[in-house]
C-alpha cells in the first residue's frame, strides 16, 4: 500500500505538536513521534528475548521509533517519501471510514438525547472522541474475527456490524434488542457478528477475548483446520492496565502466541482518576515487551495512523506470530458516563483534544486530497442521521419484553431449573413461580 508518510505526519504535526497534557517526559515522547518522518508504526519481530527498556529510553530523542526497544535491524525500514498528493487510502476506503466514525458519533449523540428524555436508563458510557480507534481497528477485521469490549461498547458493536436498530432497541430495553433487552448498555453481544461483549467490570473481558484467541489456535492445531485464522481484538482502557487480569492475559497470550491484539484506549481518565495519578509507569505500550510481545504507541485521534497499526498487528496475528499491545492515545469528549458531571478535567485539556477531533481530521484529509467533496460528506452525514432516527423509531415502536421472558436464557439447557414430578421443568411448578417470577 502506498504510503505518504511525510504528508500524513506533517498534516498531523500541526495538530499534535502543540502541548499535550502529559508530564514532561511524555510530551517529549509525543512530540518526537509526530515530528518523525517515519510512519508511526514500528513493530519488531517476535524475537524479543533481549529487551533493554533502558535502550528505549535512550532512543527517545532519536526518532519516533519507540514501539519497542528491539535492535534497530528489526525496525521497519524508512519508506520512501512520496509526493504530497498521494493519499494513503482510496476514496472508497476513506468514505467508509468517514461513514463509520460519523455513525459512531451520531449514534452516541442520540443516546445522550434519549437518555435525558428518559428513554434509556442506568449507566450509559459514550464513546464520543474515540471513534478513530474503533473504526481504525474493527473495519479491518474480517468476518469470523472477534471483538471484545467493555461497557463503552456501543460503537464497537456498530463498527463490527450490529445494526443501529438492534443496539438502540437494546438500550431502550426492548425485546428486539441485540440481547433481547437483557443486557443493556454495558452488555452488547452478537454471536452473528463475533462481538463477545460488553462487560461491566473492567478487565473481565480480556480473558474472554483470550479464550476466543485460544480457540483459534486450538482449531488449527488440535482440530486440524488449516483455515482457522480468526483474530481477536480486545478493547479496554487505561484504568484496566493496572488490573491483574491485564497482566495475566499478556503473559498467556505471549506464552502461547495467541492471535489477539490488546488495544488500550488510553483516554487518560478512569472516571475521575487521572492515569498519571494511578500508574507508576504511565507508558502502557512498554508493558508489552516486558511480557515478550511488541508494544506500540499510536495517536488514537488519527484514524489513518490507527489503521496502519491495525493492519500490521492484524496481519501479524493472522500469520500466527502472536499478540501485540497497542496503546492508542485518545480522549473522550464527554464524561465517563451520562451521570458523570465531568468536573475534574481541565477545560484546556478538553479543548486540546477537541481540536484533534478524529472526524474533523479525516474530513479535512479527504477534502485536501480531493478524495471527496463537501456534498458527498454532507450526504453521508444525512444518511447517518436518517439511519439513527430510524433506529430510534424502531426502538420506540418495539415491544417491551414480556414477563414470560424472565426465566428464558438463564440456562442454555432448562434442566438447570430442575426436573419436576412429571419430568417437566420445575419452572412450571407453582411453588417456584409464585411470587415475583409469575411466569
Amino acid at each position: 500500500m502506498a504510503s505518504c508518510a511525510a504528508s500524513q505526519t506533517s498534516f498531523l504535526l500541526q495538530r499534535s505538536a502543540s502541548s499535550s497534557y502529559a508530564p514532561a517526559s511524555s510530551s517529549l515522547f509525543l512530540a518526537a513521534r509526530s515530528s518523525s518522518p517515519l510512519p508511526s508504526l514500528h513493530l519488531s519481530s517476535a524475537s524479543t528475548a533481549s529487551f533493554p527498556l533502558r535502550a528505549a529510553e535512550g532512543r527517545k530523542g532519536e526518532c519516533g521509533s519507540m514501539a519497542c526497544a528491539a535492535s534497530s535491524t528489526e525496525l521497519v525500514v524508512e519508506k520512501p517519501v512520496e509526493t504530497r498528493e498521494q493519499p494513503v487510502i482510496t476514496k472508497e476506503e476513506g468514505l467508509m471510514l468517514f461513514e463509520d466514525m460519523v455513525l459512531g458519533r451520531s449514534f452516541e449523540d442520540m443516546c445522550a438525547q434519549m437518555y435525558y428524555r428518559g428513554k434509556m436508563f442506568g449507566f450509559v458510557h459514550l464513546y464520543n472522541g474515540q471513534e478513530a480507534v474503533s473504526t481504525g481497528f474493527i473495519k479491518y477485521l474480517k468476518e469470523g474475527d472477534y471483538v471484545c469490549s467493555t461497557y463503552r461498547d456501543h460503537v464497537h458493536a456498530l463498527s463490527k456490524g450490529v445494526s443501529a436498530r438492534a443496539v438502540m432497541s437494546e438500550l431502550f430495553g426492548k425485546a428486539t434488542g441485540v440481547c433481547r433487552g437483557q443486557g443493556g448498555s454495558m452488555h452488547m453481544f452478537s454471536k452473528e457478528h463475533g462481538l463477545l461483549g460488553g462487560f461491566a467490570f473492567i478487565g473481565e473481558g480480556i480473558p474472554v477475548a483470550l479464550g476466543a484467541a485460544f480457540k483459534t489456535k486450538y482449531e488449527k492445531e488440535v482440530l486440524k483446520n488449516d483455515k482457522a485464522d480468526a483474530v481477536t481484538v480486545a478493547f479496554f482502557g487505561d484504568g484496566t492496565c493496572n488490573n491483574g487480569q491485564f497482566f495475566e492475559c499478556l503473559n498467556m497470550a505471549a506464552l502461547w502466541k495467541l492471535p489477539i491484539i490488546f488495544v488500550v484506549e488510553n483516554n487518560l481518565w478512569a472516571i475521575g482518576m487521572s492515569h498519571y495519578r494511578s500508574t507508576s509507569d504511565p507508558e502502557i505500550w512498554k508493558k508489552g515487551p516486558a511480557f515478550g510481545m511488541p508494544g506500540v504507541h499510536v495517536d488514537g485521534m488519527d484514524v489513518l495512523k490507527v489503521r496502519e497499526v491495525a493492519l500490521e498487528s492484524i496481519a501479524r496475528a493472522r500469520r500466527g506470530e502472536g499478540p501485540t499491545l497497542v496503546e492508542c492515545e485518545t480522549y473522550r469528549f464527554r464524561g465517563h458516563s451520562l451521570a458523570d458531571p465531568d468536573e475534574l478535567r481541565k477545560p484546556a485539556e478538553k479543548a486540546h483534544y477537541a481540536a484533534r477531533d478524529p472526524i474533523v481530521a479525516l474530513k479535512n484529509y479527504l477534502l485536501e486530497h480531493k478524495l471527496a467533496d463537501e456534498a458527498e460528506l454532507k450526504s453521508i452525514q444525512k444518511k447517518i442521521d436518517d439511519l439513527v432516527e430510524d433506529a430510534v423509531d424502531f426502538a420506540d415502536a418495539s415491544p417491551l419484553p414480556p414477563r414470560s421472558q424472565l426465566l428464558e436464557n438463564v440456562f442454555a439447557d432448562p434442566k438447570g431449573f430442575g426436573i419436576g414430578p412429571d419430568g417437566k421443568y420445575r419452572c412450571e411448578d407453582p411453588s417456584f413461580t409464585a411470587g415475583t417470577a409469575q411466569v
Partner: protein
Amino acid sequence: MGLSSIAYDLGSGLNGPMSISHLSSPRQQLAFSAKSCTGSRACITVRAADGNSGSMRAPPSTVRASKLVTNAVAVKSETASIAATKSGHELLLFEALREGLEEEMERDPRVCVLGEDVGHYGGSYKVTKGLAEKFGDLRVLDTPIAENSFTGMAVGAAMTGLRPIVEGMNMGFLLLAYNQISNNCGMLHYTSGGQFTIPVVIRGPGGVGRQLGAEHSQRLESYFQSVPGLQMVACSTPYNAKGLMKAAIRSENPVILCEHVLLYNLKERIPDEEYVCCLERAELVRPGKDVTILTYSRMRHHVLQAAKSLINKGYDPEIIDIISLKPFDLHTIGNSIKKTHKVLIVEECMRTGGIGASLRASIMDNFWDYLDAPIMCLSSQDVPTPYAGTLEEATVVQPPQIVKAIKQLCG
C-alpha cells in the same frame, strides 16, 4: 459397631478399611440390599488394591467377623453370578473421574482441560494423569497460576465453540476466579439474550481434609450456589463421579462439579459399559420410613456409618445423597418427606448460609404440610478449619452426632 471408623487418606495410603456397604445402584443392590443391611450387617470391605498408586492397605484385623462379607472378591463372584452382563471393573474415585474425562475427550475433540499442573504433572490428585501424553499439551493445558484469567479464558473458549473443563487445584483457589465464575460463567448466556452458551465444567477438590489448614479446607459450594446460571453437583462415589463428570461435560450449561479431597481413594466396582448420571437427580442410597437424611459428598459416608448404629437400634432411616446442589431435586426429596415426615440434613458446609440452610428453606417452602417436626440440620462450625487434628475433627459433623440427632428427631 460395624467397621472401625472410616478413615480417609489423601494421597498414598489408607489408614483403615473403606466400606462401601451402601452401594445404591441396582446392580449393587444385588450384592447388598436394605434387608441385608438390617439383618446380616453385610458390608463390603474393600481390600487393598493391587498395584495401584495411592493404594489402600486394609489390616484384616479391623474387619468384623461372622456375617460380614470380608473381601471384595466374594462380592465380585456374587455379582458375577447374578449379573447378566459384564461384571464391571474396580477403581478408585480419582480413576473414575479420569475415565469419564478420557471417554468424553475421545468422544468429542472439542473437550479440553485447563488448569494448574493438569498436563505434565498429571493433576495434583492425578485425575488427569496420562491425558496430556495422549491428547497433547493443548488439549490438556498447563496454565500459569492465574485462576481468574484462565477461567475467563475457558469462558471465552466455550463461547466460541470449545468445551473446556477448568480444574481448580483446590476449590479454594477458585475464589480467585470468582469474578469470572459469577460474572461471566453464570451470566453471559443471559445477558447475551441466549446467543452464547457456556458449556464449561469447573471442577476441583474441596472440603476438609487431613489437617490441611484453613485455606485448603474450604467448602465453597454455598458461595457458588447463589450464582444464577450455574448448575452444581457433588460427587461422592466412583460410580457417580464418573457419571456426573460425563454428564457435566455433555451439558450445555456451566456446571460446577464439587469433589472432595478425602474421597479420591474410594474404591468401587463400576460397570464396564458406558453410563451417564443425571445432573439433576438425587440418589436414593438407602430406602427407609422413619426419617429422611439428606446429605452429599463426604458426609454421605459419615451418615452411612452412623446408619449402621441407628439400624442396630431399630431406626429405619431413608438416606438420600442429594447429588445436585443446584437445583435441588425436590421431586425425590419431596417424595421422601411425604413418606417419613422428618428431615435431617447432614452437610459439611458452614452453618451460616450453607447448602443446608438453603435446602431447609426450599423444603419448608414446598413441603411444610408434610413435616411433623422442625427440619434439623447438622453443618460444620462457622470457623476457619483449624490445623490441630482434634479441633479439625470437631469442626465437621461426625457419626456420633448424627446418631444423636436422629434419636432427638425420632424419639
